[in-house]
């Protein structure tokens, strides 16, 4: 882990404006991700959660504002140091995005081969260990196409852990899964945070997930096109703006 000031936020988002296809989706986003917390970005479908995540991981250029990771700008400056910065977080994409021409083991070992000095045997041991962490210890040789939806998500989570990231970014980990599998994935995220000390930013529209894993929830409003609340979900449920209370209040129904 970084020997940086433990009190300083790991990720700082300042005045960020998010666009997709030339249209402004969210603007004026200001928030910090504290070290070791689970921050959940929540909101109805289409409010720009996934697009925001793509900005946070440096895949998209913001229309305005900036994102600082450990004090360094993710979008400006030379590509090489920014890429090195990005390798300090693991990203799990919505559909898994496992490299389909490679086995699960190779999916995990590719980043290690490219960006660490580990030898082949050590890479394989770590890849097997990380697959075992997500309950896929027998899946080293399997190809992504051979996996079920839930297994694919877990494999994607394992790959996101390949380089021992300080920050995990998860895009809708529970989407397309049955409630049991989704809950299992939530539990997994919590365990990883607890045992590996990883900071987690997770996008979801599933309220059950918010209450299960979030230390704080950030609410994006599609009408206002900005964040309307940030805080502990239990507090937001009681003291948040009406739209947030209504959204979170559906937890009982869900």
């Amino acid at each position: 882990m970084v020997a940086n000031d433990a009190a300083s936020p790991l990720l700082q988002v300042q005045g960020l404006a998010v666009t997709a296809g030339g249209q402004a989706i969210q603007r004026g986003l200001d928030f910090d991700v504290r070290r070791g917390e689970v921050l959940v970005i929540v909101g109805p479908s289409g409010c720009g959660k996934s697009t925001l995540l793509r900005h946070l991981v440096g895949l998209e250029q913001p229309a305005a504002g900036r994102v600082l990771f450990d004090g360094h700008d993710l979008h400006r400056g030379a590509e090489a140091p920014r890429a090195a910065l990005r390798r300090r977080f693991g990203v799990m994409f919505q559909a898994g995005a496992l490299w389909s021409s490679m086995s699960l083991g190779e999916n995990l070992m590719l980043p290690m081969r490219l960006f660490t000095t580990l030898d082949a045997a050590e890479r394989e041991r770590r890849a097997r260990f990380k697959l075992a962490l997500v309950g896929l210890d027998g899946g080293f040789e399997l190809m992504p196409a051979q996996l079920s939806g839930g297994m694919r998500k877990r494999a994607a989570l394992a790959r996101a852990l390949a380089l021992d990231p300080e920050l995990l970014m998860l895009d809708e980990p529970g989407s397309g899964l049955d409630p049991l599998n989704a809950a299992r994935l939530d539990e997994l995220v919590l365990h990883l945070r607890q045992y590996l000390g990883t900071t987690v930013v997770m996008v979801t529209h599933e309220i059950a997930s918010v209450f299960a894993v979030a230390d704080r929830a950030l609410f994006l409003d599609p009408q206002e096109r900005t964040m309307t609340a940030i805080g502990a979900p239990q507090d937001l449920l009681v003291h948040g703006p009406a739209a947030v209370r209504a959204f979170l209040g559906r937890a009982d129904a869900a």
Partner: protein
Amino acid sequence: MTSTESAAAADASATRAGSSAWGLEQGVWTLRLVPPWAAKALDDAALPAALGVGGRVRIDGSALGHWDAGVAAALWSLRERLQQRGLQVELASLPAGLGEVLLLAQPGDVPREPAAPARPALQHALHEAGRTIAFFGEVLIALARWLSGRVTVRGTEVLQQLDQTGPRSAPIVLLTCALVGVMLAYMGGAQLERIGAQGFLAGVVTVGMVRELAGLMTGVILAGRVGAAFAAQLATMQAGEEVDALRVLGVDPIAHLVLPRLLALLLMAPALLAFGALAGIAAGALPALWVYGVTPAEYLQQSLRALTATHLWIGLFKGMLYAALVVAAGCREGLHAGRSAQAVGQATTAAVVKALVWIVAAACATTVGFTAMGF
């Protein structure tokens, strides 16, 4: 509608929608829905001219016995149009369920903003051309980085691509080149026969195949077999965020995905070219021997005499260039595809078309260029 209008005027301007009719009832314009009626009849033409803008109208469904989706859709679009004119629409005495369904179909939360205007055709073409040039630049930079040892290309990845592209393309390259050789010998022989120069037929076929046609045919076959496959593979990876997963790690997709494919095809091209040219020359011997009376020894001798190192190098250069263009077209389209199944299809089509056009353009340019330089 103002209630100052006289009932006579109302009668005169009342229009009929099927057997449903607009009329003034207690000073309010009312559409009484009476079946049977056609949804079409409720369009703009059926609105009374005196309806004007603003005010209140009523749609009365008391005579409507039952309803279906067609009735609901017609009423919904009529209500939209009336509301757009600033009229307040009151739905009265609708059959059970119809009013509730119409309430469900309220304006949603998708903003009805006009889509971003499409770029004019010329601007779009320039944008695309710029992308292509940028892509060529990126590939050359990646190639330079590989040659200088700053980027590694996995040997297994190249072998995998070699296996996918080379051996499986060979039979069809052989077949097409052989057929072209037969055509060339037939046509060439017919012309040479007129001046009694059949002896040169072997030279025509050999130079034609080695220098121009083996490369061209190989390029065309690779465009259809390999370029399309590359585009589909990369576009699918793009759609599944697999390319993004590479980018996040700081892995250059060009170095990781395009270079192995380029190297595999460049390694495979000389072999395919050689086989193609040999097949063409051998097949060209059939008409030469049987139709134009050339002896096998003459054919072989003429063929070897015509084949100079210059022709060989030019043929090899052209063939490798076409193979590179096939990879470039396939990968460029694949990596710039959108995120949908339709986009994968479009990328595949565009890759084949681009590869063919680029190959023919390059063939023309190199033929003119080399000839002008005296080679």
